[in-house]
């Protein structure tokens, strides 16, 4: 898993729990890497699972909610660090569609060994997008956070529902994103 996920997870935890507690958690977790993460490195997925579990326990925030919050945090991080990916997309649906076809392509150019989830999108109508998430890591809550973060970034409203199904390329989590005109907050 890309080191950037770990560095951002710790940064979010610092804000949630404070650096003292985060450092104590890392020390206690006894991670193979020792927690010395760099954004450009690669680290075992298991370390992320350990850290998320530990942060959830310490904060009292259930793992799914914590992952969703992390998804929104990651989206804000991407937007401030890689604005070029967003500048060509006029709305949330366009950006979500471009993640697989453009963002992941560019990431692969820089990091050919990066293991990325697979997204498949389909416009079901002018205000409805189908967004399928394929990954053996089952981080669908993180994906939901990314979707919601995107909607917030573009100041758009939508109802987001998801379901585990057998998709075109195997088992996946299918998100249905229905735009609304009112400010009904997106719900999982």
């Amino acid at each position, binding site marked *: 898993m890309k080191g950037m996920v770990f560095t951002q997870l710790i*940064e979010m935890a*610092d*804000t949630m729990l*404070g*650096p*003292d507690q985060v*450092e*104590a958690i*890392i*020390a206690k977790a006894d991670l193979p890497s*020792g*927690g*010395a*993460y*760099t*954004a*450009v*490195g690669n680290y075992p997925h298991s370390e992320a699972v350990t850290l998320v579990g530990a942060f959830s326990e310490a904060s009292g925030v259930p793992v799914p909610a914590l992952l969703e919050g992390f998804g929104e945090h990651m989206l804000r991080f991407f937007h401030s660090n890689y604005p070029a990916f967003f500048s060509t997309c006029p709305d949330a649906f366009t950006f979500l569609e471009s993640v697989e076809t453009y963002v992941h392509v560019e990431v692969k150019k820089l990091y050919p060994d990066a293991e990325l989830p697979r997204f498949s999108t389909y416009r079901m109508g002018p205000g409805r997008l189908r967004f399928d998430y394929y990954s053996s890591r089952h981080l669908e809550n993180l994906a939901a956070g990314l979707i919601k973060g995107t909607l917030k970034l573009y100041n758009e409203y939508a109802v987001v529902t998801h379901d585990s199904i057998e998709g075109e390329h195997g088992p996946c989590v299918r998100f249905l994103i229905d735009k609304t005109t009112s400010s009904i907050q997106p719900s999982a």
Partner: protein
Amino acid sequence: MIPQEHTPADPVLLARRLDRERRARLESERLLEAKSRELHLANQDLAQLNTRLEARVAERTHELEVARQDAVKASAAKSEFFAHMSHEIRTPLNGVIGAAALLRNDLTHPQHLTLIDTVTSSADILLALVNDVLDFERIESGRLEFFPAPFDLPSVIARCGELFGPSARAKGLELVLSCRLPDSLLVVGDTLRLQQVLVNLVGNAVKFTRTGKVTLTVEPQPRNPGESSRYQFSVADTGPGLDVEQQARLFQPYSQAGRNPADRKGGSGLGLVTCERLVTLAGGKLELQSRPGIGSVFTFTLTLPEALIVGHHAAPSALSIPKDVNSLRIVIADDVKTNVDVLNLILCRMGHTVTPYLSGLEAIEHVQTKPADLVFLDLHMPTVDGFEAARRIRAIPNVGARIGLIAFTADAQVETNDACLAVGFDACLHKPIRPTLVKETIARVYAKRSV
């Protein structure tokens, strides 16, 4: 520098975080170093690839250049072969045509006259075939040049009438010349090539039409002030016409070769293709409208600017040719005895006194010691060729400038004319030598030299 909100207050935890951050930095530096090395190697690979590609491009370019040179050499060799063969074929043809023309005057028996006419027309066809192939080869190899000069457009049309009138009448066809031009109109263009196209089109029309008529029309085209004059030429017939498939094949070279022998009408099958290429090279477009059973119309338009006439240097026209001259003292030099004999006979019958030689050197010596009005020189002779002989004759004090010099050659190249004029010839006759042309040329050259 770690931001304040990410700094633990506990010194032990702070030390841990700093240690973690330091190790992360070292790890990122290692990764960066590895990535840099990877980039460097990739760059080296790219540079090598680039060098290899450049080498391959150079190699391929060289191969192409060699292939091009080979092709150019092969093409030049082919052209040379064509020119040589043409010369070789024309030389004996000259003998046949000339001898037949002379023999015809001595014959009275109708059967003999028919036979001698067959000889003449067969030789003419053979000559036309050689010319067709040679012309086409010259066009395809891009060596065909146009030589624009002032000429009288109505006489070109009239000549077509004279040429095909008899054969049309013999078939019961009407040959109509519709020339909507003044009686005399000097324009600038390559008269030889225009005539070639018209002769081909009218000749074909007469050949393929069984009943009805063939019409050659020339019309000036409307133009704005300042624009050069343009003329539309059309040749219409009431012949069998062509279906769409035949029309598509018409301007394809060698299309006659694949046809059913029963459908062939003689000729090289290159005539129309040559016409189409010539018209295109002259800036026009040869177009065909045809309907089976109705007939065909070939049309093209050419820009032929009007000639400016300055002083007495007007273009030669039929009127400017002096009257017949005879009793001239003429010297001939040609290394081929048949040619000498034919020309000798032609000139003698015109009433001239002829001294024939088989070498250029002898002709020069003759001119140096004895009086002469005209010298006919074959261009290709061993030891002293026609060009050299002309130069030497022109250099003879007092005499050289007064003598008329006429080149005669089996070369088909039009470029030869310029080369002849450059060394001092007054005219250049291409074999086979025709009595009428010889007469006309002698009159013109003699008039020029005796002024």
